[in-house]
């Protein structure tokens, strides 16, 4: 089973794949020829792009981690605020019971410039 912590990190890195051939007997020779051909005509062109892509992926993963941390912090902060609001509501009810009037139901909001 994959370690979940590694999934984004691992998948962010683009790697070269070795050439293989399933042809019997001469397969290794075919793979060697393909690798040499690739070295000659494509490697100098593709490798910088792979490195560029990897740099971008690392940046995205790092940004995602930072955003995730912020999202969690905001979620917890919002939850704490909802808790405090509920605590204040209960406190208002208690103070009302001790001498004030019970609070009314929510009224529909009026436009700010309305009558």
């Amino acid at each position, binding site marked *: 089973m994959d370690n*979940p912590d590694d999934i984004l990190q691992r998948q962010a890195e683009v790697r070269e794949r070795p050439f293989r051939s399933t042809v019997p007997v001469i397969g290794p020779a075919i793979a060697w020829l393909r690798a040499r051909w690739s070295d000659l005509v494509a490697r100098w062109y593709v490798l910088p792009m792979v490195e560029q892509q990897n740099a971008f992926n690392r940046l995205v993963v790092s940004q995602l981690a930072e955003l995730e941390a912020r999202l969690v912090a905001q979620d917890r902060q919002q939850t704490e605020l909802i808790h405090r609001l509920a605590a204040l509501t209960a406190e208002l009810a208690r103070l009302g*019971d001790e001498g004030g009037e019970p609070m009314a*139901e929510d009224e529909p909001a009026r436009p700010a410039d309305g009558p």
Partner: protein
Amino acid sequence: MHRLAYISPLPPATTGVADYSRELLPYLAQHIQLTCFATGDVDPALRQAFTCLPLAAFAPRRWAFDAALFHLGNSHHHAGGYDLFRRHPGVLVLHEAVMHHFLADHTAGRGDFPAYTRELAYELGPAGADLALGIQFAGTPHPLFALPLTRRLLDLSLGIITHSRHAAAQVRALTDRPVAAVPALVEPRTGHPRREQLGLPPETLLLGSFGLVTPARRVDVVLGALRRLRETRPAHLLIAGDVQPTVPLDTLIAELELGEHVTRLGRVPDLAAFVDWLATVDVVVNLRQPTAGETSATALRALVAGRPLIVSDAGWYAELPPDVAVRLPATDAAALAETLANLANDEARRAALGSAARAYARREHHGERVAAAYLGALADFLGWRGGYRG
């Protein structure tokens, strides 16, 4: 008199918490002004006895109450109450200390995997989001029992009520919010044995397994014990409850060649029939491994019905005194078979267990005692000077 918004599934919702609330409400109503909020239809008798409103009616009226009491557990019947609690929390009655099953079903189970990710991340921080990624794409199993997924609920709540010291300790380890252990309530009900419907010889020991058959109920262990027991004496197992698709019950019964010695009732539709079947069996076996920190309504109903009860030696079950219930390791079929054989040969022991069980349930789980404990907890949590105003 204090005014309480009571938010819970209510009958006819097919969940134990609904039945529980039906039994608790009359006791609470003697001390506090109640308004119930529930999803869907509500039993006409309850509507007649109490003010019952739809869940959506709570938010605009929340100012009119001294407290809101939310009952939450691992059933889809709690979905509406959970959503409401997220926006307007109050005091939380946590019927299970582990809520992962409900939250996984409420989010990923409805196709909203990002919401499940948010819950895992809330619980564990960014590592939770990584875990969600592993669950979604890499075959990591849902850690349903290992991760309670209660942190948000606890953070929101004004206080938490559990139904066992075990669950209270689990919750206290996760939060600074006030926590109280209030015993669960069970009402004595008279059952009418239905043994003649099974056509069993009088000497056959009838075992009962009650409630939804999940992997945690360890029916595999019960069947293994039945197979061993039948080598020395006639015995039969009654299974009353729906079977979750993840439990290969047919295969288990076939492999152990117990087809003729197991009766499956499926879900028993009403409480009266459920109590009748409880009264029918000689011994109730109520194993749980792992436990989600629940207090078993089935076990309580078996106790108050005076049935000899065998439970797992874990969680709330381990709080039952040894003269009230026999506690065993949940996965030991040999020990279960031996205990059943001893009980089968000792009618006096069965009677003593049943008698102690009934007395214990009537003393510890009586409605008056439970209601007083609820109101004491509310007064502590909310700072009601001089306790609750009855």
